[in-house]
């Protein structure tokens, strides 16, 4: 309940404040958002599996975001930022799909 309220609160805050993304962060924010989504779905799945632990969730959330942004940053330094961010998005997307599949089985048994 609180978690859902937190998500809604964040969305509302973003809508109300309409913040500008700093130029330096602009390439990394979308990757970070996708990584965080992946962590969130992973957490939900773990919760449904009965193995959820908030400490693990926090750590995996932060590390997901940091690693995803870091990979893209390194890619930018190496001159392959565009390709690497595509790769990260693909990997995260696959993980999100498999996590959502597991959640679906839990909730709908299908």
């Amino acid at each position: 309940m609180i978690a859902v309220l937190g998500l809604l609160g964040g969305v509302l805050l973003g809508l109300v404040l309409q913040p500008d993304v700093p130029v330096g962060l602009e390439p990394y924010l979308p990757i970070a958002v996708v990584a965080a989504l992946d962590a969130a779905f992973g957490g939900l799945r773990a919760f449904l599996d009965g193995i959820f632990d908030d400490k693990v969730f926090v750590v995996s959330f932060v590390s997901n975001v940091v690693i995803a942004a870091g990979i893209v940053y390194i890619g930018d330094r190496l001159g392959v930022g565009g390709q690497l961010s595509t790769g990260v998005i693909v990997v995260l997307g696959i993980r999100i799909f498999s996590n959502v599949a597991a959640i679906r089985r839990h909730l709908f048994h299908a």
Partner: protein
Amino acid sequence: MPEPEDRPDDQPDERPDERPDEQAGERAGERPAAEPTGRQRLREAFRSPGRGQVVVAVLLAAVGFGAVTQVNATEEDDSYTGYRQQDLIDVLSGLAGASERARSEIARLEESRSDLLDRSESRRSALEQAQEESDTLAILAGLVPVRGPGVRIEIDGTVSIDSMLDLVQELRSAGAEALEVNDRVRLVAQSSFEATEAGLVVDGELLGPPYVLEAIGEPSGLRGALSFPGGPEDSLEDDGATIVVEQLESVEVDSVVDDAAPDVAVGVD
């Protein structure tokens, strides 16, 4: 970092999920009755949220905030601020190529434009020349009324056809450009004279004295062509006619030849 809990994130126990659905159902059936299902856990969490959910709520708030921010930035972003250096270079070289192509297209179009202008220019000058020529020929063929300096010759009395022809020839050789008899008959290359009892028939028109011949040309030259000894004036006076010559600033020749087009003669290249 506790390993087992981390698994769903990093390397979730995917195998059962990837299997056909019967397996999942089977597994759910295997579950001891004491262990709650996912739905029950979810319902439980909604009904009585624990303290741990606060952290989750904060993180999810961060996700929501970031996602909305990014969506806004993507919607607003019509500039190139978010681009990487390599992307910018690609965009720039793409634009340079496009502008290069556009420039060569402009050059090609300008060339064809000047080409067309040249062509229409030369066409117009050809048209002007043809128009001028046609005007000249219309005057010479007697197709249009003309006006200009000239002489007016009034001849009263009887005249012989020879004297009349002599008069016309002298006027022509003195440079007469248009000739008219009695304001009715234009004298052109095809004109003919015939003598009858009643008078002269010029181009089928019967004309009686006094004959008035108007000629357009240089007046003093025309005048001189008539008055030399043994010239037309003398021969007309020998015929018994009286002749009066006026040099005029402006002579009007209004009569025209109706149909100057040849009926049977065709041009030979």
